[in-house]
């Protein structure tokens, strides 16, 4: 097991180096080069040369790359050209909002998707099965921003049940030691604030969680169907075990293995979806931050954001692989 984890960890290093190289090359292919990208097309020749010297762009490419990589390892992603603040600081400030949203979305997706897929498999080719299959197809056919707009329109504007934008009512005061608003409210012991924060979370979480829900439901269904036809399930039933026990101990436990992987693999999808969901709900997270950066052509932020997102995806894949090895001995020993 230990050897497996070490090997898997070592495999991650070349991926991260390769990624940094890809982003490095990407920034250098921007039209007009990073100097123009930073200053805009109307920049004078002198100011362009000045900034390129400042950024070390007049040095040979190899030394540029090693400097870049060195900064990256120290967590230095450069500074935003709009706010002049270090990209890493802004990123860490906004990351909790995105994590909170992503976590809520995943909770929704798992809480609804797993039972739905399981029940669909138990009623294979019945009405419920077909309905959930078709429903999940509709789910993945919705552009996330459109779903977000509809939810906002129906539940916030028309019915007025839930707030339409932001993470908390603006007039409310709450200390933010962690920037995870749910945790902040819990720490403060402020029930009213907690309710308010949770209410703000519901619509964005549903918008962001719908596609993962559809995928999780389908995978759970497929995995359950696979397990239901296994010999050990037939054996367990044949020896007269209580059907409820067979379902829980034999079927569900084995069927959830692939689901764990899929949940991990949704991280990329969640981060991507966050870009659009946060825009619609004015959610102050990494996604809306990136969109603002794109509109302002703030390349330092875009570059830093992409490296960071990719890093998160690589790390979650690593965690998924390792947790999978814990859950499934067949992988551990291969």
């Amino acid at each position, binding site marked *: 097991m230990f050897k497996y984890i070490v090997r898997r960890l070592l495999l991650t290093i070349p991926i991260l180096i*390769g990624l940094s190289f*890809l982003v490095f090359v*990407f920034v250098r292919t921007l039209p007009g080069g990073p100097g123009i990208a930073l200053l805009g097309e109307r920049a004078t020749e002198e100011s362009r040369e000045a900034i390129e010297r400042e950024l070390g762009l007049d040095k040979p490419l190899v030394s540029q790359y090693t400097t870049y990589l060195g900064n990256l390892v120290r967590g230095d992603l450069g500074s935003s050209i709009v706010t002049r603040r270090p990209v890493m600081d802004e990123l860490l400030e906004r990351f909790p909002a995105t994590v909170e949203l992503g976590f809520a979305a995943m909770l929704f997706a798992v809480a609804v998707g797993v039972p739905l897929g399981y029940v669909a498999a138990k009623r294979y080719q019945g009405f419920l099965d077909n309905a959930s299959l078709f429903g999940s197809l509709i789910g993945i056919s919705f552009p996330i921003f459109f779903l977000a707009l509809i939810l906002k*329109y129906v539940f916030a504007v028309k019915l007025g049940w839930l707030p339409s934008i932001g993470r908390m009512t603006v007039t409310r005061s709450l200390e933010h030691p962690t920037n995870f608003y749910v945790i902040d409210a819990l720490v403060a012991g402020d029930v009213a604030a907690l309710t308010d924060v949770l209410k703000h979370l519901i619509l964005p979480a549903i918008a962001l969680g719908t596609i993962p829900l559809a995928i999780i439901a389908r995978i759970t269904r497929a995995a359950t169907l696979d397990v239901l036809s296994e010999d050990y399930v037939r054996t367990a039933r044949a020896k007269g075990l209580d059907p409820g026990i067979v379902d829980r101990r034999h079927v569900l436990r084995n069927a959830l293995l692939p689901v764990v992987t899929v949940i991990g693999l949704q991280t990329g*999808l969640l981060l*991507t979806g966050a*870009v659009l969901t946060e825009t619609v709900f004015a959610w102050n997270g990494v996604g809306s931050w990136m969109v603002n950066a794109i509109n302002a052509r703030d390349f330092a932020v875009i570059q830093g954001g992409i490296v960071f997102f990719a890093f998160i995806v690589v790390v979650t*894949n690593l965690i998924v692989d390792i947790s999978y090895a814990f859950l499934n001995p067949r992988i551990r020993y291969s």
Partner: protein
Amino acid sequence: MSVAEAEAAELSLEDQSGLWRDAFERLRRNPGAIAGALIIVAFAAVAVFAPALAPHGPNQQVGRLAAVPPGPSAEFPLGLDQQGRDVLSRIIFGARLSLLVGVVSAGVGLTIGMVLGSVAGYFGRWVDTAVMRTMDLMLAVPQFLLALAIVTALGPGLVQIMVAVGIANVPQFARLLRGSILAQREADYVLAARSLGAPGRRLLLAHILPNSIAPVIVQGTLAMATAIIDVAGLSFLGLGPADPRLTEWGKMVAENAGRLESAPHLVLFPGFAIVISVLGLNLIGDGLREALDPKLKS
């Protein structure tokens, strides 16, 4: 009938139950796939015959300029927009762009991915390693984000987003084709062709590729669906076609997102046009996957 004729007749009988014929039979019995096919045929027909079907031009002003444009009426079934243009006509013309975007983006991804995947799978060794490790790197960046990054580099515009979404699709196709070719490369019929002296290029093009193509077709259909959604998303973020005369569904939703309260028809109709066309592609893709999956054959 001579013996040779009888044998030929028998052979052609056997031909009848090939992979594709079986797949088609199964597809025909799948109501979801039929519904998907109908949606896509209708979608393509609307796109192709847009000038004949649309009651007005996409940019023709048929009503008055209005801050709060009128919703659906007998004269204008889907209402007007704030510049007095007919929403139905705009959606009909928008189908052209969506279809184009889906086909071109998936096509770009499929072509480049197929070339890279088959080269990697066929030649193996260091070519394989170099190509596939690059693909792994691209896969680490979420697809939409990769497309977003590429458009940021290329600048906003229709061609740029199609290229960006297409390139973001490359790694999936490359992986899929490589896997499929690796499986086929050692198959008996390939060994037979090789021992008969067929050159490498012929082996790849005439024997291995046609037999590896089924999963690629499934993936292609699903990639078209994702491409339409991704392009609409990029358009929503303001990175879509800059030309105001081009009608694109995602852009229509984006431009009117703020008017959802006063004029919901401006957002809902183009939005549902996206949902329905994507659903059609997903239904077909799903049906094809089931139809072509040899595991379900028995």
